[in-house]
Structures are given as structure tokens and as C-alpha cells.
């Protein structure tokens, strides 16, 4: 089995600062972390390898600093890590990002399974996983809460639905995106962490993956952020209740009665 896990570095805090030119988030100066959902993707990849053999490769697209999340992936048990980083990639939306990642996966070659986290916490779009599958022309299963089985070149997964779940079986090669329910990610040991800090991580540029430069970066992105604004203001002024707990409770129940809520 050859497994690729796609991961992303995201800002750790919720303090948004926006570049007035590009209208995109200024990532410099913010603490960055591995996208929490991707930890589950890495863990699942590593578990599949531990059970069925093969190798797990983590890839990420981002600035050079994103090498940190690849080291994190190495400390969590992946075998290899590759960074896609170049100014030509900068400003990519989900369409262009999934294109670049798909090209990298083609370049890696002979990949059976791609695993992504459900979504990244900075954009919350959940579009890159299915986008990769579409660019590669592979089958996909999203919102996977359990890998039921892998055999004879196929994978059987449990997919979350709003009213329960289904069991879906697909032939390789395939892309899955995983939910937090799927596993409990391990905590890296000090030993692995120290080894990951020494690892060599190759950096690939557009030419290395044969990417069409019209399809990457800001120019290759169909969407543009044209404006950012603070969230809408509060709708009204609250009626405030103060006093002893008993007084508060009485006042609340009175209010609810007046409004026929109870």
C-alpha cells in the first residue's frame, strides 16, 4: 500500500489579520499548527500501514515554514514528507490547491490511497479532498468515520450522513476525507520527535510536479476574495437580570411566561 496524507499548516489563533492587497489572511507572525483534522488523517494512514504494510507519505503545500507540520507528521509516524512551496503557488484557492496536490500525487506515483482531514480550520471549506479526487479522476468517500476493511485493491468505509451512515466500497486508487470519530491520534514520543527534527524534507516547485502555471496560485484560482469585514453586529441590547440566584430564576421564569415560551 502506498498512502499519501495531505496536510495543511493553519494559524493557531483566531486573531484574524487581513492583507489589504490580497484580502487574504496574513500568516506571518501568527503561531501556526498542523490543522487538527489532519492529525486524524495521519493517524489513519499510519494505522493502515501498520496493519497492511507499505508506506505513508505526507505532503503539504504552503510557505517554507509549513515544513514544521511535515516534521509533526514524521513524529506522528509517517515515513516520508514532501513540501510544495514556491511563490507561484501562493494565493491558490481550493481549486488550484487541489490541482497542485493532485499533480504531486501523480508525481509520487503508484499511490493507492489519499487521506485528507475533513476540512481545514482556517477556511472550513472541505473542498480540497474531493477536488484532489476530481483532478485525479479517482473515486472519493468523504466524512469517513471508520475504515471497515481493506482487501484485494479495495477499501470499505463508513461514511457519515445526516441521518446515520452508509457503508461504501471503492476500488483503489481512491481519496478519503476523515472525521475526528475515526481514531484517537497518538501523542508523539520524545524519541520520534527528536528524529523528525533531523529529517531531510524535499521541497517541490511547480516544474517538479509538471504543474501548469495557469492553474496554480492567485491567477489559477477561479475565486477571488474581494472584501473582508467584521462579522455583523449584535442584533439588539440584552435585557439584563441581576440579583440573587433565586431572584434571577424568578425573573427569568416570569419573562418566559410573558412571552408564552413556557
Amino acid at each position, binding site marked *: 500500500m502506498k498512502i499519501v496524507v495531505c496536510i495543511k499548516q493553519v494559524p493557531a489563533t483566531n486573531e484574524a489579520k487581513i492583507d489589504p492587497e490580497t484580502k487574504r489572511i496574513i500568516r506571518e507572525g501568527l503561531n501556526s499548527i498542523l490543522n487538527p483534522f489532519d492529525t486524524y488523517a495521519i493517524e489513519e494512514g499510519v494505522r493502515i500501514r501498520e496493519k497492511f504494510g507499505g508506506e505513508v507519505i505526507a505532503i503539504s503545500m504552503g510557505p517554507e515554514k509549513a515544513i514544521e507540520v511535515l516534521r509533526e507528521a514524521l513524529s506522528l509516524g509517517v515515513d516520508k514528507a514532501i513540501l510544495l512551496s514556491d511563490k507561484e503557488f501562493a494565493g491558490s484557492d*481550493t481549486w488550484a490547491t487541489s490541482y497542485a496536490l493532485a499533480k504531486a500525487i501523480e508525481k509520487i506515483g503508484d499511490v493507492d490511497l489519499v487521506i485528507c482531514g475533513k476540512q481545514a480550520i482556517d477556511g472550513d471549506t472541505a473542498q480540497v479532498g*474531493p477536488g484532489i479526487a476530481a483532478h485525479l479522476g479517482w473515486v472519493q468517500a468523504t466524512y469517513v468515520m471508520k475504515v471497515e476493511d481493506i482487501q484485494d485493491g479495495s477499501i470499505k468505509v463508513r461514511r457519515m450522513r445526516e441521518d446515520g451512515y452508509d457503508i461504501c466500497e471503492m476500488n483503489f486508487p481512491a481519496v478519503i476525507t476523515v472525521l475526528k470519530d475515526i481514531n484517537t491520534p497518538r501523542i508523539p514520543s520524545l524519541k520520534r520527535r527528536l528524529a523528525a527534527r533531523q529529517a531531510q524534507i524535499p521541497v517541490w516547485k511547480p516544474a517538479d510536479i509538471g504543474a501548469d502555471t495557469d492553474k496554480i496560485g492567485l491567477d489559477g484560482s477561479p475565486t477571488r476574495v474581494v472584501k473582508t469585514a467584521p462579522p455583523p453586529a449584535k442584533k439588539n441590547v440584552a435585557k439584563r437580570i441581576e440579583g440573587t440566584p433565586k431572584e434571577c430564576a424568578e425573573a427569568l421564569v416570569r419573562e418566559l411566561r410573558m412571552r408564552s415560551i*413556557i
Partner: protein
Amino acid sequence: MILTSVTDRSKYSNVWVVAEFLSDKIQPVTYELVGAARKLADKRSSKVWVVAMGSGISQQVGSLFAYGADKVIVVDDSRLSGFIDELEADVLARLIGKYNPEIVLYAATARGRALAPRVAVITNCGLTADCTGLDIDPENGDLLQTRPAFGGNIMATIRSSNHRPQMATVRPRVMRALEPDPDRTGEVIHETVEMSDMLKIKRIIDVFHSDETTVNLGDAEIIISGGRGMKGPEGFELLRKFAAKVGGAVGASRAAVDAGWIPYSHQVGQTGQTVQTKVYIACGISGQIQHLVGMQSCDFIIAIDKNPDTPMMQLADIAIVGDVFEIIPEIMNELSKM
């Protein structure tokens, strides 16, 4: 498609809604999307089309006209019974190529969020996820798509000027459906599935309906929700008792879920569920914007917190200043007297 000229742009018209089905039953979010599409189509002087894909669904599409649709494309095929992403994406991409809609809206559900990005790549279109606002730029007719970004701390407006159709997903209970007009009628077009060998490489083996996998906060009338101020799992025990007393469901902020006090399935907010209940009682929730976007359209919001100045206490219709651990038992007491 990438637009290369102005005449290209004029080739595309009408606002499409991809109907949401679950076990071949049409879902209310479809009507909400039709309501949003209606407003956009009126501004563009165009029509609302709905694409309904599923198995044995033909009888259900009539109601769509009452809610504002002008035309419904029905693709009724037993192979569309389960959700085969690739099959539905292929059907949609083909229909888009045939009819050239200007805008396509999807439900931001498990199915819609899997389907839309696939179609966007195949058709080379921009896609914006989880829009909370949709409008038309009066100057050039572009779709202006507003969505919370970066954990809900900012609202970003996004457009896709050079590509058609423009695509967006919208979460359930974000838009409002129009009052149905039973006298409205429209046209039904039937289309077929062509990509037939797909089922050889992907199959739905089984479907399980379960109440346990998701706590459906959307169905509750009252939600009692807790945050960091509940201090631990024991705090949520108190909320469970409170919820049981008023017949409500228990919700939680991301902070409480992340702390391991209550499972993720209870999370309200941008990365949890969006709710629109009659009453929402926020207990010890400061009101990070990521939480607020998931509950601010509830009809009546009550907040209980020691700190009177939190965003949640500002947002609430009634803000009770005090210790949740003292006030909730008193409220339960008061309710017992009734």
C-alpha cells in the same frame, strides 16, 4: 468554464438549486435554497431551476414550484439511490454543460459538500463553501458570496468573475424558505444517467439510520448549551438535568468539546451544527464568533454568565448575570412549582 469574452458571459443564465435528498426524501434545505435562488433570479431577471437526482423521487418535485422554482430537471434512476459522488457529479456536469446556468447552489450537507467541489473541478468553476449571504453585484451581475472565514472572525465576500457558472454551498437553516404558494406551477424536464460503469468501482453496501451518530440539535425546540464556564463534565451533567426538565437538547461550545467534557456531536457553531431553535440558553459560553454564527438566528436567546460583558451576554435577549451552578438549580426549582 473560463470566460474569455463578454459574449461568453451572456451565454449563461438562470439560478440552479441542486435538490437535497436523504434516503430519497427531499430535505427542507432544498426549499431554503430555492428561496435564496428566487431572490437572486429576480435580480437577474432569470429563472429558478432545481435539479433533482435520486431514485423514485419524481412524485416529490411538485412542491418545489410552490416554494419558488420555475423549472425542475428530474433525474430519476435507481442507480442514484445511494450517494455515488462520481455518478451525481457526472450527471450535474453534463447538465451544466447542456443548459449553461449562471449560478448553482448546493446544500452544505455531507452530500452537497462532497458533490460540489467535484463538479467545480470538472466544470472548471469557482466554488464558495458555507455562504451566509448571497447577493448580486448591481454593476456587473456577479454573484457576491459572503461567508465566515478564519473561525468566523471575519466575513469574506468572494466572487468568481471570470468563470461560469458561479457555485456556492449553503448550510441548512441559514436561508429562509418562502411561504409556499400552492397555485404556482412550472415545467418538469426529465434527464438520464449516462456514466454507467461507475458502479463497478464504487458501491453502497448498506445504509444505517441511527439517532446515535448525530445528536440532531436541529429538531429540538430548546437547546441548553454549555461552554468553558461549565468547568468540566460534571457541569454538563447539570445541563442534562436542566434539558430533561424543559424537554430540550444539550449543546456545547467548541471549547467544551475540545476539553473533552462532551462529545463533538453536541457542538454548535461553525465547525459544529447550525441551529435555529425557539429558545437557546447559553450557560457559561463567552460567545466566540465561531459559536455565534451557529446559533444567532435562534428566536430567543438567554445567556447565563458571571461576566456581564461577553459577546454572548451582549447578543442575548435576556442576559442573567451570575453563577450558572447556582442559577440553574434555582430555575429548575421555579419550573417545578408550575
